[in-house]
């Protein structure tokens, strides 16, 4: 449990601080543990990126360090097509990444992922924001009941009711469509709850002033409430986009067969399904491509991301 509790200013640490780089057993031990943990955490990321650089032989024999030797190797598939042997010699890293895009319509998957996550977020906001506003700032008959329902629905994880949702969509003939990917997520009870809590803190005076200026309730939502809610909305956006970009379970259920509707996780899974020895490299390249956008966004805007992901923690 270390010295967590010890205030940084306590003389115990301060009086001994002396030179900035003084060796301390406790501090070193802490870093040792944290570094060890980091290695375990980073291991699969290392494997993923490293394999996406290497040739099949290097992967199989576990050689070549992180980048691989990048020696040319023979692309058997190309040879099978009857091309000249000299044309079929490829650099591993280029081969892996081009194959990732050629063997499966990876761009299409990425596009689908983008369409789905953005549609989900936009609809969630369109539905949740007015409802949250009404629950927070309007007084009407049945408001408590509606809020009670929201609180109850917070108990329901959507993944858990996937089966009846699937039956409903199948009955409507909507499986294998963008609609199937988006519809179950259009209602974010959590979003309503979050936005309501946020709107509660907006002073009534602001809304009354807007009414005095002649604004209709509808324009109050979009012109007054929305701008004040930007920070909360941004956090919610990150929360929503991360969840749905990475979601595998739901697309797996409603998209069967039609590759043109695959989201990135489904595409990767498909790749794995028919992976033989030669395709480890391209598969890791695909995985890297799918994981990279969010990781990069996270590294750029860490604070916002952590805020957004842990949003569910504030209550």
């Amino acid at each position, binding site marked *: 449990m270390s010295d967590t509790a010890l*205030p940084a*200013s*306590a*003389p*115990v640490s*301060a*009086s001994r601080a002396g030179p900035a780089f003084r060796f301390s057993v406790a501090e070193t031990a802490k870093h040792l543990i944290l570094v060890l943990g980091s290695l375990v955490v980073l291991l699969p990321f290392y494997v993923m990126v490293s394999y996406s650089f290497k040739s099949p032989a290097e992967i199989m024999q576990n050689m070549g360090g992180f980048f691989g030797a990048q020696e040319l190797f023979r692309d058997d598939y190309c040879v099978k097509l009857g091309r000249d042997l000299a044309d079929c010699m490829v650099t591993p890293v280029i081969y892996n990444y081009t194959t990732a895009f050629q063997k499966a319509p990876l761009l299409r998957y990425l596009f689908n992922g983008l369409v789905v996550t953005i549609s989900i977020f936009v609809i969630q906001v369109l539905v949740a924001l007015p409802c949250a506003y009404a629950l927070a700032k309007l007084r009407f008959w049945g408001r408590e009941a509606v809020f009670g329902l929201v609180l109850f629905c917070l108990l329901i994880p959507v993944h858990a009711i996937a089966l009846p949702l699937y039956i409903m969509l199948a009955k409507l003939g909507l499986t294998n469509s963008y609609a199937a990917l988006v519809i179950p997520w259009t209602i974010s009870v959590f979003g309503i709850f979050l936005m309501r809590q946020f709107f509660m803190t907006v002073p009534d005076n602001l809304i009354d002033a807007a009414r005095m200026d002649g604004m209709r309730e509808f324009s109050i939502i979009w012109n007054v409430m929305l701008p004040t809610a930007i920070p909360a909305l941004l956090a919610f956006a990150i929360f929503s986009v991360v969840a749905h970009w990475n979601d595998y379970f739901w697309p797996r259920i409603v998209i069967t067969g039609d590759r043109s509707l695959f989201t990135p996780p489904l595409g990767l899974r498909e790749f794995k399904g028919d992976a033989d020895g030669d395709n480890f490299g391209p598969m890791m390249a695909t995985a890297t491509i799918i994981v990279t956008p969010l990781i990069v966004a996270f590294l750029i805007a860490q604070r916002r991301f952590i805020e957004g992901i842990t949003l569910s923690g504030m209550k």
Partner: protein
Amino acid sequence: MTAIALKAIEKSFGSTRVLDGIDLSIADGEFLTLVGPSGCGKSTLLRILAGLEAPTSGIVEIDGRIVNDIRPASRNLAMVFQSYALYPHLSVAQNMMTPLKLRDLSFAGRLPLVGPLLAREAYRSILARVEDTAQILKIDHLLDRKPGQLSGGQRQRAALGRAMVREPIAFLMDEPLSNLDAALRIHMRAELAELHRSLKSTFVYVTHDQAEALTMSDRMAVMMDGQILQLGAPEEIYNNPVDIRVAEFVGAPKINLLPGTLDSAGHARFGDMVLTRVTDGGDAGPVTSGPVTIGLRPEHLALCDSGAPQSLSGRVVHKENLGADVYLHLAVQDGAHRIVVRTTPREGRTASLGRTLHVRRLEDQAMVFGPNGNRLGLSGVAGRTVAEVA
């Protein structure tokens, strides 16, 4: 006997210097107040004494032992925090037991559930002491409550109780009354002073409120800009401030400060008002003529008839009725300066706004400060020539 000594304490945070060579010794059983405006370093000094902060240089001694390298937990000092810092998950009784448990029980005895069984005797004596203390503070009926269920005043007592149970070398209090409402604050002043008398223990008390310092302490140290400007008994500080900043800080309403001049004979004057005694310059050597500041407390002035010698006249611009006293704010010298005069309710009643009144200085009451803020002494000899000069 000296209980605590602080020697040449300096403290800097980065390039900002918070404490600038503080020397202070605190006698056993004394109630010493560190008072000053916010940012003067008083809380830092208290925290250095507690050990929560390390001095950049200087020595802290408790009972003749240098404790610089001894951690707060081992210094046997108790502290009452501004926010009380009660453990919110523990009842008042458990809060008060905590320091005793940590001191008197072994690791095993402090374990939850089994602890009370292993160290039954020790537990019983701890509980008895907590109950005794609670009775003194009149919070024995609150022992089972959590801090969240208490009022501000009750929390204050619980925090005091936690400090009292272990009979420390000294009590350190960091603005303990500042979170209470005005009426309760005044009540608690009396109660704390009483507690100090009955405990006969050393109190080191930090506050920004000069009234608290004046009412409770045996001695008070007025601090400003990381230095102690003056250390002494409250009466001494109030009646005989050595520095213009001390004079200004202590006393409410504030002392009247008027720009005066010093003539070659050593008489200080402001308009028609002339000090009959000659300034002697004190340590600063012989006095030369030049600008000075004359300090007159509101109670050093009295109403008089017009035309009385050495009087000032001014228009009443504001009236503060405190019941027992009425303070009149006068604009003198055509509104160039304002002075506050204390009057009796009877006198005050007749002074309506806009009227012109005359005030004179009471005998022997005035302070003169040099251009650098130092107090200039007044010799006992009255200059006979004054009347002619005037």
